[in-house]
């Protein structure tokens, strides 16, 4: 069972706040929920700040990175904090919603932040072409490093071709 976000008692009330288009999910035990509901507007932000400052003191890595808490994912309602305590994300959209925070985390885990390798064939053409571009540009750099200018010239032409195709397929940009 999920724990109350303020104390360690089991959460029995799950509150989703909708305010000016932003979504906030809260998981609270009975007593904390009462408190939350009776004074729900301003004191909360004070509390969040104080708990964050504790985090900052013992976790130097994220201190400058997360000056204030991100709103929860509008799709699955998970907060970044919740994810950090569970170790599992809630849905695929989290990767877009928390892209900045996750990029840092993923760099720590994998030392890289850009996927290479297999791409679903069903992906819209544009993203496959973007992958081609990434791969070709990497190869171009290698070719130049190896001083293989003939290969580099060929790669450069391929990159231009893909870029042209990309532009024609998405007239918006």
């Amino acid at each position, binding site marked *: 069972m999920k724990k109350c976000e303020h104390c360690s008692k089991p959460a029995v009330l799950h509150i989703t706040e909708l305010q000016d288009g932003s979504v906030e999910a809260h998981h609270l035990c009975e007593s904390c929920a009462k408190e939350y509901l009776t004074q729900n507007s301003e004191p909360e932000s004070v509390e969040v700040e104080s708990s964050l400052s504790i985090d900052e003191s013992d976790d130097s890595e994220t201190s400058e990175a997360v000056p204030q808490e991100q709103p929860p994912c509008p*799709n*699955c309602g*998970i907060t970044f904090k919740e994810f950090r305590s*569970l*170790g*599992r*994300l*809630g*849905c*695929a959209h989290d*990767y*877009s919603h928390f*892209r900045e925070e*996750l*990029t840092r*985390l*993923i760099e720590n*885990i*994998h*030392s*890289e*932040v*850009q*996927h*290479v*390798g*297999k*791409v*679903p*064939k*069903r*992906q819209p053409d544009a*993203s496959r072409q*973007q*992958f081609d571009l990434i791969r070709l540009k990497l190869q171009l750099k290698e070719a130049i490093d190896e001083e293989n200018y003939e290969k580099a010239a060929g790669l450069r032409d391929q990159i231009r071709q893909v870029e042209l195709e990309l532009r024609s397929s998405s007239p918006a940009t």
Partner: protein
Amino acid sequence: MNLDVLTQRSGEWLRGTGPEADIVISSRIRLARNLAEFPFVNRASDAVRAQIEDFLRERIEKLQGRRPLTYLRTSDLEPLDRQFLVERQLISREHAEDHGQCGVGVSSEENVSLMVNEEDHLRMQVLRSGMDLDAAWAEINEIDDLMEQEVAYAFDSQFGYLTACPTNVGTGIRVSVMLHLPALVATKEIQKVFQALQKIGLAVRGLYGEGSQAMGDFYQISNQVTLGKSEIDIMKSIKDVVAQILGYERRVRTALVKENRQALHDQVSRAFGILQNAQTISSEETMHLLSSVRMGVNLGLIDDVEIPTVNELFIQTQPAHLQKLRHQKLESAERNIARAAYIRQRLAENNPHTSA
């Protein structure tokens, strides 16, 4: 699929065939995939989990791959049967413990298993006997392509295939090779191997994966990094490392035989003798002795038993297997008696000269 039928035989990957089979037990590749339109499993309600399971089950049953798959709804199975599937490496421990609707599609040779609602919606694995990563990749890649025609995977142009845990994101691939390294363990050289592997970011695990002990001198070596390297490059790094470890293990084995053939011959023969005659034996002792016997057979010091039999005994002497064989629940002490009896019987069958 009748699970009782499975107890009588073993998965294809245990047959001790394939390249480097004296040291490499199996090659395994696993891909983690999620469906774009559902929340991840840990965030899905029971009703949504059931939807995911129904959706994937239908597609797995229709899959036109090389091998027909039988689908088992593991959440409907008894705990003993789930444990049995774990021992056969068809499902993970996490999958066996999972609550909520889940299942697995398995090929009759037991070298393909597609787990539904594990940590990710879909975890697909292919197992091969011996060192055979290329064949495993060819098959899992084909299955992945076929699945992809039926479902929309969660994918991001920066992060690749999206997984519930960021440690698997990108390719979603885990390449593992299971090695039998008794000589490196006996000479304690194995510590150097661990340190070297750690430095290059590869993981070492026991027979049953994450958190399991290295019983019977078995070690699984696998990649940890899944993003920023292609599947082929990840496989290559594992292949290169395994080739070095194989060379190391073989050199140490040769040295052991050369320096003290008699002592080694004595040790492996005693191990064999105990297994042939014991009346009660723990799982731990069994693994330890089977490991000695396995090395003895591979070095030509024991010729009364075949490698596939030894490989099978490692799996078939596990707790759930013994209880399935006996068709009853057994306490630890009873299992030790059943285990000893089963080993005596298997080793006698295998060698008609010594059977009474």
